[in-house]
């Protein structure tokens, strides 16, 4: 394939010797705009850098991208740059498949600390490991509460006052829920409960409930049976089975957004990365607000960082580093943020005049930015997909009324421990005798 690409590049530029070819794996929804915008950005980059030729390759969801990157590395054909879900970075460090960025940063005359200081503090946790940089934050998100102004008015709620605490939240959700005979014509709250989303939102609730959720410094521990997590899951359980304000079972993103657009959901939790999609498709007024809090304001970071998989030639690596710096420059990162809804990880992006104008015009985007102050790291462990799935299976069982939060989380913890066991035995439990 690389040969084909190279050939195509040669034919296009007419220069047989010139460009270093690199490929960029990126995971964004392929349906239309985002993929096209990425293609446009890369085109601009290629034009500005005649000695580099980047091919953008859409690689599916975050999980798919992880899978494909891993497979490509094992097959000896690593992509040059990947936009990787930020919480997977740690696993690549553990399996030694990722390039440490410190030398590249130092070559540019910067220190790792100074480099990372250019990004919002909440993002550094998932981009660094043991004081070394492995990822460069590209587009990031937090879960947001979206709510329909019309639904709020209809339910006698004040759309200028979004629920702030869990108590206000569950009360609002109850009021928003509307029945007609046996059917619910409007749910108070909906959220995606499918894999990936489910774990992310649950971790956010647990953090808001005072918890850590996972060991931020070590990839072998998660805290599923701690009171903070149990309480978070119990809250979801209450939302579904006590307040009956959220549909039972698992709802996927499509069902959630379709219901919200059709006025059949008063509130929804969705990523800030969906802002543009909601803005384009929601016909009636809507607002965004912080994820309501239990004990503290908190929201997990989501989104992705740019990483360099190991196994590429120095030329490709150097070219990839140029691309990374370009993509994360304030101008480009800011533009991508305005286009997608993800917030720009680069602090300086928000000092640009066009960004200031945009934020004034779109207060929904400002909410995401303000929430950043309370953002935490995204849980990352050894075998993170399996460890996450253990939790998600438990939460799904609770949402479906098939298990109590305590029982479900006990099982989840047990499974997660088993999955991390091989790593734990070789690290934390491997002590001098």
């Amino acid at each position: 394939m690389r040969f084909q690409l190279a050939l195509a590049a040669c034919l296009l530029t007419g220069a047989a010797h010139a460009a270093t070819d690199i490929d960029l794996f990126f995971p964004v929804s392929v349906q239309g705009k985002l993929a096209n915008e990425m293609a446009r950005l890369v085109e601009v980059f290629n034009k500005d850098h005649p000695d580099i030729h980047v091919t953008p390759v859409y690689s599916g969801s975050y999980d798919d991208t992880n899978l494909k990157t891993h497979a490509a590395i094992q097959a000896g054909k690593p992509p040059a740059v990947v936009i990787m879900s930020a919480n997977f970075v740690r696993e690549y460090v553990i399996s030694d498949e990722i390039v440490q960025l410190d030398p590249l940063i130092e070559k540019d005359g910067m220190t790792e600390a100074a480099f990372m200081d250019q990004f919002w503090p909440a993002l550094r946790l998932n981009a660094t490991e043991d004081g070394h940089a492995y990822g460069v934050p590209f587009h990031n998100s937090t879960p947001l509460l979206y709510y329909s102004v019309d639904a709020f008015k209809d339910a006698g709620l004040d759309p200028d006052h979004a629920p702030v605490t869990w108590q206000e939240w569950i009360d609002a959700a109850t009021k928003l829920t509307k029945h007609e005979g046996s059917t619910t014509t409007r749910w108070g709250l909906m959220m995606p409960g499918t894999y990936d989303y489910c774990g992310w939102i649950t971790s956010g609730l647990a953090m808001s409930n005072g918890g850590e959720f996972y060991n931020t410094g070590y990839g072998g521990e998660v805290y599923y049976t701690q009171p903070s997590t149990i309480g978070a899951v119990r809250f979801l359980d209450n939302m579904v089975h006590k307040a009956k304000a959220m549909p039972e079972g698992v709802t996927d993103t499509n069902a959630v957004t379709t219901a919200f657009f059709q006025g059949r959901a008063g509130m929804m939790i969705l990523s800030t990365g969906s802002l543009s999609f909601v803005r384009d498709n929601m016909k009636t007024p809507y607002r965004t607000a912080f994820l309501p809090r239990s004990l503290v304001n908190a929201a997990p970071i989501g989104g992705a960082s740019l990483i360099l998989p190991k196994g590429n030639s120095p030329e490709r690596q150097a070219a990839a580093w140029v691309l990374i710096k370009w993509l994360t420059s304030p101008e480009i990162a800011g533009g991508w943020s305005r286009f997608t809804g993800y917030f720009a990880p680069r602090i300086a992006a928000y000092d640009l005049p066009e960004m200031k104008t945009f934020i004034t015009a779109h207060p929904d985007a400002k909410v995401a930015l303000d929430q950043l102050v309370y953002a935490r790291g995204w849980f990352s462990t050894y075998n993170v997909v399996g460890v996450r799935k253990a939790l998600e299976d438990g939460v799904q069982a609770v949402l479906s009324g098939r298990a109590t939060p305590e029982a479900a989380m006990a099982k989840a913890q047990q499974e997660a421990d088993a999955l991390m066991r091989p790593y734990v035995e070789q690290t934390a439990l491997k002590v001098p005798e």
Partner: protein
Amino acid sequence: MKREIPLFALLLTCAAALLWFIPFAWMAVASFRHNGAGATDLASLMPSGPFSLANFSDAWSSGHFPLWYLNTVLVCGGILIVQCITVSLAGYAFARMRFAGQNTLFALFLLQLMLVPPILIVPNLATLVALHLYDTLPGIMAPYFASAFGVFLMRQTFRTLPREYEEAALVDGASRLQIIIRVLLPLSLPGLTAFAIVSVTTHWNEFLWPLMATSSPSNQVLTVGLATFTAGAEAGSEWGVIAAGTFFVAAPLLIAFVVFQRRFVSSFTFSGIK
């Protein structure tokens, strides 16, 4: 002529068959109806406006359909060409020749009917990597180059042919290969066509193996591309666009089937196993 099937049963069958068609009806209606992700008449089967081709153009521009079509055609065609060679030769050997271990070999061939590549994904991927075929179109094709089903089919087809032609050719000094190519294959076209239809349908529709055997999007086939449509990342889906994308993937075979229905039906029953 008196009916063997009572009228009410026929009506019931009509209703059931129409029920079977509903997903396609929705696909057609939804892909021409351009009304965004949150409209209330999403599910209506009544064609209602605004009609436009916008969903098709959105789907076309957000996927890489030309590339996916090309890859799918290359994969199906490549598999078929090689299969035609391997199954004709082996089919002839089993139909017309006698050799030591024939029955054992035949049974060994038969095993492949069951051990389909998706089941053997883990070791087959390792083989592809070792052969430097991982993430290439030939890598998708390679496990299908031999087809036990095709061998059986050709063996059966050859057996129905009279031997006189071959015997005459043998006497004239033709080699086995010449006999197969010049004499038998032209007479076996119906069998080969049946095999071709089944083979192309199977590989056009296959998903799991091409999904796993490739990683770069430039090697994606239609089914793998379509899956990226259905599974949106963090936002939601525009149903009209999904319907249009599904239409692109399904249309070629559906159209071929309606046009060449008799040929298709006899091929599938002629054959059976994929």
